[in-house]
């Protein structure tokens, strides 16, 4: 179980101030909704939480049983899906999951079951991602984010491009995982905002 | 003495020193045997220039390493400044060397290992600046440039040791004759002037370097104030 604590996180890009001091924490079993209009810094904030971007000010800590983790140890605990993150289009859905499972040291995993939980029918598991529809790609991306049972799950617009059924499945996934992971969801979708136990609004 | 007057007097001292060394090199140092006319006097400028270039690249290395450890923007400024000065002095050493080569060997350029090594050195640091120019984000620019500088630096010993060993065999007569002649005929007065010139040029480098770093520091402070 990992808790992510962020204090006074601020970010500027060149002259533009994007985040102006955000504090709070992600706790296991809870979902934090990060809201705000386009360009308000939601994705930037998640990138900082993931350690992909350095904040201009403030800091982020990962705490496991009150022990502070080194940044190299953040990655194994993390699952991330985001719009600016693509999987490999030359590889099939299955090969993509297999690749990420290998990278994360997950051995016995039933990729097919996970893909079906996310609503991707078996007929598509062995097609290259380049031939997938937008919603099908999004499902594989989500499967990639959760296949190693991360303790910290950062979902940026998780149901972008998804249909009604997809929406429900993602909601189901979040419900299933909330007991074992600290979850942050950045979203523009009013339906997703309802998932949160807490929320941060980056507007203004 | 306050810091300012101290710095000012150092500057004057450096000026006098360089003027003295130049006068000694051109007028006082005895003629060396084995050279065409007074051409050897170029050594008093050529060698210190080459030395300062090497010194500057070492400073660049240290600053790059420090940047990667501490991520202080000032270290990046230090690295860039050192690389720029190193490039400048390497170009000067090449020019004086070519003039020397024209007089002594009859050609401006011979692809002798020395010449070749310095050209590669010039290319490497020109590449360093091309890389810097190609990255918009400041932090990333600094980190990538530092990584490249360090990586490049470790290949340099090979440039100096491997390359000449293989290449001397190609046209040994040119190379060995020239180098042998100089090594043996260095008399004490000449050595003194050369050491003086080395010290003077090192001082010149130190002055230019600190000046640029100070300017950069002031600019950074002003920008920080504007942003706040």
């Amino acid at each position, binding site marked *: 179980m990992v808790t992510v604590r962020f204090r006074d996180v601020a970010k500027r890009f060149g002259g533009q101030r994007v985040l102006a001091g955000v504090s709070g924490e992600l706790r296991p079993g809870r979902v934090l909704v990060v809201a705000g209009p386009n360009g308000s810094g939601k994705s930037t904030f998640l990138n900082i939480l993931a350690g992909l971007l350095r904040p201009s000010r403030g800091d982020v800590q990962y705490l496991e049983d009150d022990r502070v983790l080194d940044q190299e140890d953040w990655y194994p605990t993390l699952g991330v899906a985001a719009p600016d*993150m*693509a999987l490999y289009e*030359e590889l099939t859905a299955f090969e993509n999951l297999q690749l990420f499972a290998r990278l994360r040291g997950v051995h016995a995993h039933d990729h097919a079951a996970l893909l079906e939980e996310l609503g991707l029918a078996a007929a598509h598991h062995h097609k290259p991602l380049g031939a997938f529809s937008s919603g099908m790609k999004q499902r594989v991306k989500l499967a990639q984010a959760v296949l190693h049972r991360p303790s910290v799950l950062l979902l940026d617009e998780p149901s972008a491009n998804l249909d009604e059924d997809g929406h429900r499945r993602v909601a189901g996934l979040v419900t299933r995982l909330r007991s074992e992971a600290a979850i942050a969801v950045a979203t523009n979708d009013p339906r997703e905002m309802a998932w949160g136990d807490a929320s941060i609004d980056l507007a203004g | 003495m306050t810091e300012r007057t101290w710095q000012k007097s150092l500057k004057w001292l450096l000026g006098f020193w360089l003027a003295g060394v130049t006068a000694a090199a051109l007028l006082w140092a005895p003629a060396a045997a084995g050279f065409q006319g007074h051409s050897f006097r170029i050594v008093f400028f050529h060698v210190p220039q080459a030395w300062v270039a090497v010194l500057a690249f070492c400073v660049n290395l240290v600053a790059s390493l420090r940047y990667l450890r501490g991520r202080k923007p000032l270290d990046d400024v230090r690295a860039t400044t050192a690389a720029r000065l190193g490039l400048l002095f390497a170009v000067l050493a090449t020019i004086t060397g070519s003039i020397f080569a024209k007089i002594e060997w009859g050609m401006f350029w011979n692809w002798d290992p020395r010449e070749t090594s310095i050209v590669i050195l010039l290319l490497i640091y020109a*590449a360093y600046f091309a890389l810097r120019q190609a990255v918009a984000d400041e932090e990333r620019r600094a980190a990538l440039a*530092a990584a490249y500088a360090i*990586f490049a630096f*470790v290949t340099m010993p090979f440039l100096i040791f491997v390359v000449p060993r293989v290449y001397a065999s190609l046209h040994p007569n040119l190379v060995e004759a020239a180098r042998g002649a100089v090594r043996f005929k260095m008399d004490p007065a000449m050595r003194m002037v050369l050491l003086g010139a080395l010290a003077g040029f090192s001082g010149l480098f130190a002055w230019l370097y600190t000046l640029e770093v100070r300017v950069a520091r002031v600019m950074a402070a002003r920008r920080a104030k504007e942003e706040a």
Partner: protein
Amino acid sequence: MHRSTLLAESLAVLGKEVASELRRRVALNAIGLFAVTTLVAVAYQIGPYGLAEQDRPFLLSALLWIILFFAATAGLSRVFVKEEDAHTAKALRLAARPLAVLYGKLLFNLLLLLALEAIIVPLYCALMGFAVKSVGGLVLVMVAGGAAFAVTSTFVAAIIARASGSNALFAILALPLLLPLLVAVIAGTRAAAGSPELLAVFPALRAVVSLGGVTMVTAILLFPVVWRD
């Protein structure tokens, strides 16, 4: 939460590179086309009899490596550049250790280079009438040279991918660093061509291996900086 071994991760990255390349063959086609074209054109122009006897071992070695060198440069940078172009770098950055990425891509580039050498070198020797006295020596030089070459190219590829991805920048950054290596491998090839003794290639081989070793260690230390920042 699980952890994979570095080896398993590196092999996973390698496997992914191989699978992707087999499906699209961009690097393979670019490299192969350049190498085969220049090789055949040069062979046609110069031919087995076109060079003065005393220059042959040196010139033929130099020419071979110049062709290999340029051919490789045209394709090796793609391993990192395409991850940035296709926006896949983020997922990889999150899932794999930096060193696994380095090793996986390095191995892939090495395989690419060795494949290229395996095709070009015999073809070259046949077309140009390049008689190599010590085939074992040549193989050693080719393998060691290819490995040392792959290290620098892969590292520089990682840098330019984060700068702009320009191939011109890749050449600008990589060529000066590769020149000492080029000198050493040419010397080694010449030695292999000139003497049936395996020992003859050792001086050059030592230079290649030590250069490869030093750059490898440096790349290992610096790669995380390049990859994650």
